[in-house]
């Protein structure tokens, strides 16, 4: 019962919010890079690569993020690496995000119309050229709305990094609550802050989707 919520508490929460954004960006970039490799591996001409990446995706998508975070935290310690909560959380979130973004992007790459693949092949482009010059530019367009939508999931999921002791928004809320013991008020503030970060992204994703829908209907074959 340490008095009332004051400016210092709010500053502390603000700092936590910045770390939430920081961790989200790390997870998006790390998960994006690994996820892109996963997406390409899922449609690889080599069966073993396809199988290995499919197993990876199935395993990660069948495990809760909370358990992956604990595995990252204790696993890195078990092999003798002393890591900070930031490193453990970043590594775990990267592996987690990669599995989901990889699947989303695989779908986007495969939804580029078949004639585009055939035309590129007919022009004697190599597999790499076909990907870079023909397929990926169109796939990125298709992938933008679901990727922005998934960024909302990333921001929300960083809240779980609080359990391995990383002081982001959720954890800073718990710390403030430990000194004030006004859980309902503090978690309401936390919820509103998360909402303020996520809702604009949700709206943006919806708008992109609608715009895409318009473009699509014009392109649709008669």
């Amino acid at each position, binding site marked *: 019962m340490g008095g009332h919520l004051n400016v210092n508490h709010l500053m502390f929460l603000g700092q936590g919010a910045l770390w939430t954004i920081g961790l989200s960006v790390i997870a998006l970039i790390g998960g994006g890079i690994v996820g892109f490799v996963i997406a390409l591996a899922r449609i690889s001409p080599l069966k073993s690569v396809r199988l290995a990446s499919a197993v990876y995706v199935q395993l990660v998508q069948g495990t809760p993020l*909370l358990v992956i975070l604990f595995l990252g935290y*204790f696993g890195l310690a078990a*092999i003798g690496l002393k890591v900070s909560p930031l490193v453990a959380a970043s590594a775990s979130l990267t592996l987690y995000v990669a599995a989901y973004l990889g699947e989303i992007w695989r779908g986007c790459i495969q939804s580029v119309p078949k004639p585009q693949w055939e035309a590129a092949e007919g022009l004697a482009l190599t597999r790499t050229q076909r990907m870079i010059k023909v397929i990926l530019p169109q796939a990125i367009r298709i992938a933008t709305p679901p990727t922005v939508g998934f960024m909302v999931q990333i921001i929300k999921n960083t809240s779980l990094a609080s359990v391995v002791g990383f002081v982001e928004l*959720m954890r800073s809320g718990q710390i403030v609550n430990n000194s004030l013991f006004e859980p*309902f008020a503090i978690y*309401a503030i936390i919820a509103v802050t*998360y909402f303020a970060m996520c*809702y604009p992204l949700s709206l943006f994703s919806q708008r992109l989707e609608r715009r895409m829908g318009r473009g699509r209907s014009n392109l649709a074959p008669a």
Partner: protein
Amino acid sequence: MSLQLDFPAVLERWPSFLAGAVLTLELAAFATVLGALLGTLAAVGRGTHNALISGACKAYVETIRNTPLLVQIFLVYFGLASLGLKFSAFAVAVAALTINVGAYTAEIMRAGFEAIPRGQIEAAEGLALSRLQIYWHIILLPAVEKVYPALTSQFVLLMLASSVCSQISAEELTAVANYIQSDTYRAFETYIIVAVLYVILSLVMRAGFWGLGLVLFPRRRRLGTPL
């Protein structure tokens, strides 16, 4: 620094793991059934012409979908407590998970409702079906049939998300793991076992929903549409 794993030391706690897994499935089952009802009601509410009801349903869906489950669980947990209501951790966990999955279900069901061709409803009206009959036979059942795959993956995600309930000391699988690792000091082994158990649970749930789909939607089965 070499990695030494000692699984037998942890595996001898298998009755606790089993109890945790059963509780996780129970949590998921309760929240799935209640959340499906809540979500369907919210989707119907959002489609009504009453601006107040549809606005309230939209606010509910957007609020839940844009805040983390962990925060929602704490708000329900401490919110009920500050109202002077005492519930078990299990009841609070079911309530929070239901509220959470209800919002996602509502979005999926709305997509299902919107996919029902207008002509079907007009045809049903032309055949003098009552409003209730139209809602049940022409809108609700075909909509569920259409979005069944999306619904089931959402419910599997819910089962995985229930791991967060360990934070309010509901004794599900992750909470059991936290307890065992602090008792045996074999954290890595414990969480590897728990991860494997979750993968098995999600495969079991997927298989279960697939089988349920075959029973519920004979038309889909006859047409050979993948579930």
